[in-house]
């Protein structure tokens, strides 16, 4: 069978989209669009350090509210800060693949977020990549810098509008976590079923820094592929990845997380939970230990709820130093019958029991998630796993 490969179909997508004017207030968005943003975690009612909305090829809203954090469209930031060029295409190759080439060829969009030295930014920065025009190839380039000793929390929602059936989203992100800083990056995807999605992310973490990634994709996506890579360069740096995926029929999700543990005593944990109700999931993880005192663990768990689905767990451990500890566990299977019947013995119907088990399976304790988003993710999980929905 010839699998659909979006690489061979880039020409099918249009590069032109209508211009979207800047809006003063998120209330100016059409209800349907606002609802979509909400589903991807962008809520104007919630306190935020700043909000950024990018639609098709234009930044339509950018509002920074708190001291200690800078938020701007990437083009403006590059114009304003000459030094930023040292962070632009520095840890990601322009010619890594056709998608980075596509993003490198154009310069319209993306965000720049920087937390100042020592700043503890209490509220998250919300950033949204929105696709409003059908069959468009959208590409963005983002730069995030958490300066020394700062704490920054970003919620990035990616969604497509009600009129979009298909499209291509390419998002290049370069992130820098300086000495002793913490960057928590949560990405929620809510795409149209026919979307092809190619995030390309590289993160560099200095001494004692911490990078936390949470990725949630519970809605079908025709062709999603990503393999974000973190370099823990400084001693004592740490990275955590939490990934929650649910692939319905027709979805293909190939996701993984890769961590190079280069500094002494660096630590990493990669955890993924995948549920297939008929789609194909590749759950990958790759840990490369290169220094003394490295500790890392990889965990891929999958639940396969349909014979039409496929889950392929590919955990990889690569040791390049003798004094390190790395481990992995992977488990793929169906819903445990004993657990189902145990819940039924308390009066729950079989469908309700199974939906509760799947919900529990997907409900990772995600660190650093604001309550509102956690509630929202719980709601999405609830809807996606409700009796009859699976």
């Amino acid at each position, binding site marked *: 069978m010839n699998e659909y490969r979006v690489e061979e179909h880039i020409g099918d997508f249009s590069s032109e989209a209508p211009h979207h004017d800047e809006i003063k207030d998120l209330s100016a968005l059409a209800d349907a669009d606002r609802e979509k943003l909400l589903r991807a975690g962008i809520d104007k009612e919630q306190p935020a350090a700043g909000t950024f909305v990018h639609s098709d090829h234009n930044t339509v809203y950018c509002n920074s509210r708190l001291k200690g954090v800078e938020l701007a469209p990437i083009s403006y930031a590059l114009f304003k800060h000459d030094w930023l060029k040292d962070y632009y295409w520095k840890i990601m190759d322009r010619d890594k693949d056709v998608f980075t080439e596509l993003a490198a060829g154009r310069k319209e969009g993306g965000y720049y977020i920087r937390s100042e030295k020592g700043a503890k930014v209490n509220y998250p920065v919300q950033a949204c990549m929105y696709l409003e025009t059908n069959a468009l190839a959208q590409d963005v380039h983002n730069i995030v810098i958490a300066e020394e000793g700062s704490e920054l929390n970003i919620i990035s929602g990616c969604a497509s509008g009600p009129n979009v059936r298909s499209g291509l989203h390419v998002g290049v992100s370069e992130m820098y976590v300086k000495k002793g800083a913490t960057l928590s990056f949560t990405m929620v995807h809510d795409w149209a079923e026919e979307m092809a999605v190619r995030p390309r992310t590289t993160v560099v973490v200095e001494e004692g820094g911490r990078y936390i990634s949470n990725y949630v994709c519970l809605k079908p996506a025709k062709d999603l592929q990503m393999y974000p890579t973190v370099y823990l360069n400084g001693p004592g740096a740490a990275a955590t990845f939490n990934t929650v995926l649910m692939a319905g029929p027709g979805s293909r999700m190939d996701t993984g997380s890769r961590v190079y543990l280069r500094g002494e005593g660096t630590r990493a944990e990669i955890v993924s939970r995948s549920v297939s109700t008929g789609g194909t999931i590749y759950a990958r993880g790759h840990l490369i230990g290169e220094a003394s005192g490295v500790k890392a663990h990889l965990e891929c768990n999958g639940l396969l709820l349909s014979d039409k689905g496929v889950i392929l767990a590919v955990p990889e451990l690569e040791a390049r130093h003798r004094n390190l500890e790395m481990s992995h566990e992977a488990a793929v299977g169906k819903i*445990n*019958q*004993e*657990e189902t*019947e*145990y*819940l*039924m*013995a*308390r*009066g*729950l*119907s*079989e469908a*309700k*029991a199974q939906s*509760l*088990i799947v*919900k*529990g*399976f*997907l*409900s990772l304790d995600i660190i650093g998630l604001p309550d509102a988003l956690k509630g929202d993710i719980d709601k999405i999980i609830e809807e996606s796993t409700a009796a009859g929905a699976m």
Partner: protein
Amino acid sequence: MILFRGKGLIMAEEKLLELKDLHVSVDGREVLKGVSLSVNAGEIHALFGPNGSGKTTLLNTVIGFSRYKVTGGSISFKGQDITEATIDERARMGIGISFQRPPTVKGVTLRALASLGREGLSMEELERDAANLDAAEFLDRDINAGLSGGEMKRTEMLQIILQQPDLVCLDEPESGVDLENMALIGRAARIALGREEAGGGQCTRLKKSLRSGYRAGLVITHTGQIMDHIYVDRGHVLMNGEIVCSGNAQELLGEIRSHGYTECFRCAGCDRRNLK
């Protein structure tokens, strides 16, 4: 026999659970070989028997676990044939069970399950009953995750108490429980079986129509320790998938304590000979 109960007269021999010539296979092997047993409303029955005699199989068949295939005979509850009923139907009809080795369910908290299991359960009641069983700290943890044997017993008992079933099945309530906690489990069993009120404190013997709140029980016990805490009306000895002896539970336990099951083996042999 007629008993005064609540506001009206009812027959004490009202059959709550009735097993008739029950044959059950587990993974293709026949474990129960024609068990007949009746438990009347409000009565507590104990099941004795050596390891592997079929006691847990009997309880798990009553609740309807799919591994336990009924190959012959029937199960009735409240006058209805439930041999083919699903587990949740049985639970909703009023059969509750405390498992010996309950599974861990990741991501599902005890609080969530208890709330879903009984409509209208208030958080106050849940928290009060949990505190009484010294199990409040487990409410927001994944069910059974990392619990010791004794802790599992307490959370299982808590679920039964909240569920308020008419038939309480307890699978070895004393196993894994240290002496200190045995009194707690004993009290939980009394509450679950309607012999004591959850609020506790007062002497329930003084309460009128006490027996009206009695729930029936089917209790597996190896050591009989639980019988120090609940009065068991009747005992049955299971041997090799058959009930070989029924009678006064305390007497049966006394026999087993002094002679082990050897006497029962002999009895079983006699019965078989007599039957032939």
